[in-house]
């Protein structure tokens, strides 16, 4: 178990202004004891990855309800790889079909959450991911 607070960037990439979900999740992560950086609206993938680097986050959680996820999420992933952020999780949620979730998972995006997800499920997923990462780092170094 890590004693340090988990740092999460919650972001809204693209032109989509539907921020209810992002804010509800941001508040739930904060209430679960995480450090949350909320980017606000209309962020570019470049801006998001740059902020994630500056803020040294463990997790990037993006909310996309506009249907542009097949463009925006791979782009963020690509920029993360370029910046060698191999120990950072890219997750998120929105109006994303199961087929698209599958395709994005194959590219290396973490779990994506649709409408109706309990916030506790997201908290648990992030905590487990960070703990597993800690375990991996522990065994290899």
């Amino acid at each position: 178990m890590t004693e340090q607070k988990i740092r999460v960037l919650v972001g809204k990439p693209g032109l989509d202004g539907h921020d209810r979900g992002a804010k509800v999740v941001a508040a739930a992560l904060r209430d679960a004891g995480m450090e949350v950086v909320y980017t606000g609206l209309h962020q570019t993938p470049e801006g998001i990855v740059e902020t994630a680097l500056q803020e040294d986050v463990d997790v990037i959680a993006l909310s996309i309800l506009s249907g542009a996820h097949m463009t925006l999420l791979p782009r963020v992933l690509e920029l993360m790889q370029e910046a060698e952020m191999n120990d950072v999780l890219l997750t998120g949620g929105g109006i994303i079909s199961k087929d698209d979730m599958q395709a994005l998972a194959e590219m290396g995006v973490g779990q994506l959450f649709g409408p109706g997800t309990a916030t506790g499920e997201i908290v648990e997923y992030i905590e487990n991911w960070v703990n597993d990462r800690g375990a991996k780092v522990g065994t290899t170094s």
Partner: protein
Amino acid sequence: MTPTVRKDRRDDGRPIVQEASTREERMAARVAAWRDRWDRQSKRDIDFTSTSSMEVAPIYTPVDLADNDPVDDIGVPGEYPYTRGVYDSMYRTRLWTMRQFAGFATAEETNERYHFLLDHGQTGLSVAFDLPTLMGYDSDHPMSEGEVGVCGVAIDSLADMETLFRGIPLDQVSTSMTINGPAIIFLALYVAVAEEQGVSPDKLRGTLQTDILKEYIAQKEWLFPPEPHLKIIVDMMAWCADNAPKWHPISISGYHIREAGSTAVQELAFTLADGFTYVEEGIRAGLDVDRFAPRLSFFWNAHNDFFEEVAKYRAARRIWARHMKERYGAKEPRSLLMRFHTQTAGCSLTEQQPENNIVRTAIQALAGVMGGTQSLHTNSMDETYALPTEKAVKIALRTQQVIAYESGVANVIDPLGGSYYVEALTDRMEAEAEAYFRQIEGLGGVVAGIEEGFFQRELASAASRYQEEIDARRRVIVGVNEFIEQDERLEIPILRIDPRYEREQCDRVRELRAKRDDAKYQTAMVRLRQAIQEEQNLMQPVLDAVRSYATVGEIVELMRDEYGTWREPSIF
């Protein structure tokens, strides 16, 4: 409340309850006696609250309406304060307009969908634009990448607009366009297309959303700071009053406020407060209130809680009429009418067991109709996944037709009027909205409230509370936190937007820029900039700009250059 009963004893010593004499006293005594019995019953262990987390009583009776005047507060339809409806005869004269919001890919594809809907009995059009269009970016702008034609139709110029309405006579349909930041450009585009069809602006019927205040509060699709946006809205109201008297230049919208997480009362109060702000802006600009107020219209959400929704529409009509008359001095009866469009609640739809959404939508649509809506959009069951398929849209439209023709609810005006519950809830929502109006006024008005983050905070906390109730299973959502099906498989088809539309649309706009009459375009743009700097009414110069095939992105860019941009305080 203490019951007014006189306790006494019979000759044989058995106690008797002798009922008081007046009808009110007898009713109060009955209610009090019922309350005693009710207290002794066991109750299910859940929250008995409305969808808006509002405590509701187990029963409503005449006792709850002690302060309600059935003549002045309820009255009859078509008469002040219009609680029971804005028209004398309502659905017996004309059913509500069945208006399904549609738009995807390019103007070509969307035009086909419009013909499909009109052929299936839809009676009005409603245009859904893609995000780049809503945000004033052309399809080939870097910010538009991946978003072109995805959540609505991509419109870059008059050429696309011509395609969108091909074969649809604009003097015979009414069209609603859901666009806010660039609304003035779309009014101009519509007028220009009509002109090409030989239809003059005075024959155009329809609505532009234009409501920028709720963008800052909820949907977040603004282009400039609030002040220039408000100025442009006044320009549109003035131009329509003179040239397009059947057009609604603004649809003051609670829909998005509710979708963003507000309660029903917040939706009611914040939306009406926005409406008052537009009225005040119009008056401040020197317009006679009776010149523009008759063309103001509203747009409400219909969520799951049936009675709460019906009460909301009734309260909205009464509040609007009272404020327009008493506060703004409107004299024309038509200035007092809160006419509205309703859309069922997208945020209520579940990804789990999506077919259940058909049922939710039917209940919500019924509330809209029982609340006296003038037009209605019913959501499709698959909208938590993607834009709806043709089949899903058809079921949604059929839902309205079943309500209209089979259920019998359209036979009687305001059929819930006089329900103790609905009347008590209508009174209560009016009172709670008034409390919000005072609070907003205390902050310095709606714009000050936006700048200070008041609305954003109110919404974020209501949305979080709702989610917490669901997470804790104090609020049951069928298929989500109860009646869950493990390993559920999706059995409905999902619409996909082919990425080739984006490429085609980018090519089209680039080609248009290369081929248009450049001198005409340049002249129109210079004139537009000058009009902005001189604070003239922008409608004519924008009309000239769109006629010269200036693109939406080019016009917005010029405006952004003059008016600046805006960033909201980040609150969660």
